[in-house]
Each structure stands twice: as structure tokens, then as C-alpha cells.
């Protein structure tokens, strides 16, 4: 069985109709998402802002409560856990977030930030903590003299290394990385991606890698799942999805990326933007922007179907 298995996950948020209105409506942020991540591999979850990729990541980590669905990590039903059981289980699945400065307490040293997990999960005695953290620092490319510095004394790349050390400290099986390199400069981004790749291979962890940058995802991930308006529209091996996308939305996404080496070109992209999840279109959510949409697409929502070579697509036409 997969390390991470997500079935029919749905998350919705209440939206009030206004100050004096009693009417409540729902924003369906994630609607029936299935995902699988194997140990030692990376699944990229991509899409544009508002597509529900970060909410999916948060629901898997139980940082928001799903409305329905099943999440299993290493065979454990994560949604059935509560209280102390859930706290203890958090060791197995750790987040790495985009902006390490806002996820680190500005008054705690780098050592304290990383040692916290060791204390909470009683993984070593307080006397052993310093040695454990120092070894982790060395592994992620930080020096021993960095241990007692405060977050603001580090560069963006170094802060992300602290964030990674903090996640690794409790020896997780699954890392959920939400845009972990988006805030970094290109030259530093490459260092952090290489570090993450090495750590995954050494420790056999599975990664769920949430990102919007198709270049990063293509390089870093084994498989890719593309989200649009709360649903997966395409899933498959990274290189194949990028070089021969099946869903018209994936095609648009990849064509829109100004990939280096394509020369001075203007590409004509269809006008239109992702609709609001407050009023999703009927039928296929992409049909108002789809150049190939037919009458059927406007009324009937396509299901995610398996196709040849381990690929899945949710489209009536492909």
C-alpha cells in the first residue's frame, strides 16, 4: 500500500452572506481528490492560485478539517485520530512551508526551533538534543556556529534549511512541502532542491510537493497531479505529463510557462481566468476557457479516468 493514500478528499469553508445575513454558503475548496505517494518518491501537486492545492496539503496534515474523504499515512487512518494520538502521529508527517521566516519564532534560536520536536516527542534526553541538532545542521548544510542564532540573522536559503532540519528532526515518513523554494533566488533554489532530493533518497521518505512552477516540478517530481478549481484534472509520470499533456488545462499551463530556450516568441493564450470557487461553472470546470469544449462539457462533469501508461485524465474529449 502507498505511504500516503488520499481518497475522495473534500474541504469546504463557510462563507457568510454579509454582516446581517443569516444565509451561509459554502466555498468548495477541495472536491473529491485522490492521491497516492509511494515511499522514496515525490508527487507534485500543481495548479494556479486558488485551485485548492495548499488546502489539500493542509487537510492531509490535519491543519484544516476535511468535510469528507479518507487519508491514510503508512496505513494509519489520519482522519480517525484525535487528541494525544493525533499529536503523537504528527511525527510521521511533517510540513515544510514556503516562508520559513513566518514559520519560525523570531525569539527562539535555530537550535531551539529544531530541538522543539525532539522534546515534544521525547526522542532524546535534553542532554543529547544539542548533539542531535548539530548533526542535523551539518546534514542540511548549516555550521555549528549557526545553532544559537535567531531567524533574522539567516538568509532565505539558510532559513529554509532550518525549516527542513526542523521537519527531519522527528524522523518523518512523509514530508508535505508547500512551495518550499518559491521564495528563494534561482541560484539558491537549486541548492535546496538538490538537498531535498538527497535527503529523500537517503531516508526513503515520500514527498508531497505543492508548487506552481512547472519547471521546478518537472525537474523534481516523479509524478504530477494537476489541480483546477478543487479537482484533479490530470495525473501521471512527470516527464510524460509535461512533454505530452493530455488535459487541455495542463496543455495551457505548460504552454504558458516561459520556458528557457524557446526564443523570443509570443504565444497566443486564450483569454479568461480561473472562475471563482464560490460560483464554479456547471459541467467541466474548465469548459468556459477550453478551446475544444462541446455542449456535453457544459453540463456533465468528467470523472478522472485511468488511461494507458499509468496516466489519469478528467476530460470528455481525451
Amino acid at each position: 500500500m502507498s505511504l500516503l493514500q488520499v481518497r475522495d478528499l473534500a474541504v469546504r469553508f463557510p462563507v457568510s452572506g454579509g454582516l446581517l445575513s443569516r444565509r451561509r454558503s459554502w466555498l468548495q475548496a477541495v472536491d473529491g481528490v485522490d492521491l497516492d505517494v509511494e515511499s522514496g518518491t515525490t508527487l507534485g501537486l500543481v495548479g494556479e492560485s486558488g485551485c485548492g492545492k495548499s488546502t489539500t496539503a493542509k487537510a492531509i496534515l490535519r491543519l484544516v478539517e476535511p468535510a469528507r474523504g479518507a487519508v491514510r499515512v503508512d496505513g494509519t487512518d489520519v482522519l480517525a485520530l484525535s487528541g494525544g494520538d493525533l499529536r503523537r502521529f504528527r511525527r510521521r508527517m511533517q510540513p515544510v512551508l514556503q516562508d520559513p521566516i513566518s514559520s519560525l519564532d523570531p525569539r527562539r534560536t535555530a537550535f531551539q526551533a529544531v530541538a522543539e520536536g525532539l522534546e515534544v516527542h521525547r526522542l532524546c534526553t535534553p542532554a543529547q538534543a544539542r548533539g542531535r541538532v548539530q548533526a542535523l545542521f551539518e546534514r542540511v548544510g548549516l555550521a555549528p556556529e549557526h545553532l544559537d542564532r535567531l531567524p533574522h540573522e539567516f538568509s532565505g536559503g539558510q532559513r529554509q534549511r532550518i525549516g527542513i532540519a526542523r521537519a527531519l528532526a522527528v524522523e518523518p515518513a512523509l514530508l508535505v512541502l508547500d512551495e518550499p523554494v518559491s521564495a528563494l533566488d534561482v541560484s539558491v533554489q537549486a541548492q535546496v532542491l538538490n538537498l531535498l532530493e538527497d535527503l529523500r533518497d537517503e531516508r526513503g521518505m515520500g514527498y508531497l510537493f505543492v508548487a506552481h512552477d512547472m519547471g521546478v516540478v518537472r525537474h523534481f517530481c516523479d509524478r504530477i497531479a494537476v489541480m483546477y478549481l478543487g479537482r484533479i484534472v490530470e495525473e501521471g509520470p512527470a516527464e510524460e505529463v509535461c512533454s505530452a499533456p493530455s488535459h487541455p488545462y495542463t496543455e495551457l499551463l505548460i504552454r504558458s510557462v516561459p520556458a528557457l530556450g524557446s526564443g523570443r516568441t509570443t504565444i497566443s493564450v486564450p483569454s479568461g481566468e480561473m472562475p471563482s470557487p464560490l460560483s464554479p461553472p456547471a459541467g467541466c470546470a474548465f469548459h468556459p476557457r477550453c478551446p475544444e469544449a462541446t455542449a456535453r462539457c457544459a453540463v456533465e462533469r468528467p470523472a478522472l479516468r485511468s488511461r494507458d501508461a499509468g496516466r489519469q485524465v478528467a476530460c470528455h474529449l481525451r
Partner: protein
Amino acid sequence: MSLLSVRDLRVSFGSPSGPVHAVDGISFRLGEGEVLGLVGESGCGKSATATALCGLLPAGARTSGSISLSGQELTVLPEDAWRRIRGRRVSMVFQDPMSSLNPLMSVGDHLVETLRAHGDLPAREARAEAVQWLRRVGIPDPAARMSSFPHELSGGMRQRVMIALALCPGPDLLLADEPTTALDVTIQAQILDLLARLRDELGMAMLFITHDLGVVERVADRIAVMYAGGIAEEGPAAAVLARPRHPYSRGLLASVPGFHPRAGRLPSIPGSVPSPRDWPSGCRFHPRCPVADGICTTAAPTAADGVACHHPEATA
């Protein structure tokens, strides 16, 4: 003669620990209708350069060197003279349109105000022209959109409004500072498309500032790569991207993921981008450079043939 000629421009900001030299002696030229892409990572001085070019540096900033627009020296201009230059001759589009638009003014009022400030137009004609501009930048149902407020528009639509505002006075030079960075990739492609089309129609020159090498390839005729307050390399876009000669440009291009199909480890540049508070000695790239030797640690290289490096890659 070039439209814009920048010579030995330096910009420094005061700080409690002494002056911070954000831009430290850059020179470049921009011809009429030409698009120069200014690329670099955070803190390299690209935005400070743009801010100096439109006379919007904060009061505490010090500039030296020369900025000449069609022969007119801009660095010595008082603020009231700048007001006649900005908009009419030099215009700007920034990353975040929300912070450049007045939240209490409708889209139409923004455009009408700008059109009337720069041309002697009666209100009715200005409104008609404003609708034309909204149509031109691809805003659907432009007449109805005149009464929309900025918060009612998506990020992409707001950036279209900013582009209309920047171009309606008919500037010779558009400074675009990361204009698509905050946008989703499909919307970014639409905006790049729009800018290219408007450049062809209106013929203005563009200084396009970005950290994204893929974006710069799509828009630029020439590219200047900035590092640590200086220009490391400058030349025709296709040549710089295909055969970068400065070790920094080479490293930067190689570290862009997804350029080549997945092939093992991503090449990276060791170390991190230096801070303007603490530039390294000699060539500022030397602590991270794979080919640096003794001279690089002590002497700053001067630009020759578009490359500021003691050991540039030979031209093919």
C-alpha cells in the same frame, strides 16, 4: 543617438550602519523602441535602478552619474520638472497594481484623470478615450468596467488597467518592474502577449526588470545581467542566453530547473547572494565563482565587450 543613456549610475541609501550602495556604477544604453531586459536576483540593484530612472527614489537616497533621455540630463532635475517627464516621457508599471491604484477611485476616473493631466481634453472626450484604452488592453466589456473599483478586478485585470494608465500619455519609455511576477502563469502569458503587441503598435522602448530568465527571453531584444549592484554581462538576448560569457550568467542559466528534461542533479551556484551592506572585495562574484583566482579577490573587473570579468568565456 540612444533614447536613454545611463553612465556610471550610483544609488546609495542611508542606514544606521552607514551608506548602502545598492547600485554601484552601471552604464547602459537603450535605443528607441528597444526592449532591454534587466535580470538579476534579489538585492542586485535592479529595482533601485528603475526607481532612479523615474525619479522616485526616497528623499534620503543619493545618486551620482548620468541619466540622459534624448539628450536631456535627468539626474539634476527638480521635482516639478520630473512631474512633466513622468507619464508623458517615462512611465512605470510595478509588480503589485493594487498598491499603485487608488482604492477609492473607479477605473474610469483613474484613466480620465491621467488623460486630462497630460492632454488638454474635455471630460467627455477623455471618457471616450479611456474606454478605448480599456478595450485596447483587453478588458472585456470596457464601458461597463469604467465604473469598477480596483478591488473588484482580478490581479490580471488590474495589471491591464495599470498598463493602460502607464501608456495612455504616450511615453517614449516604459519601465516595467516585475510586472508579471505576482500573476499566475496563464495570466502572465496573456500580459506578456499584451505588452509585446502594444510595443509593436505604439513603438515605445521598454526596460523590463525581472528575476525570471524565461520571461526575459520572451520579451527582450537585449539583456543586462545584474549582480551585486553592477552589470555582469550585457548583450543581444539570444547571444547572452545561448552563450553566456560571465561565470555568474552561466551559473544562473544552468540552475533554472526544467530547462532540460530531468537529468540528475541541478547545477547550483554555491553560497548565497551577497547583501548590499557587505559587498565582497574585488569582483563581487569571486566568493561563489568556479574560475576565480588571485586577481579576482582584489581588483574589480571593468566591462570589456559587454562582460565584466577577468576570465570571461571566449566568444564562439
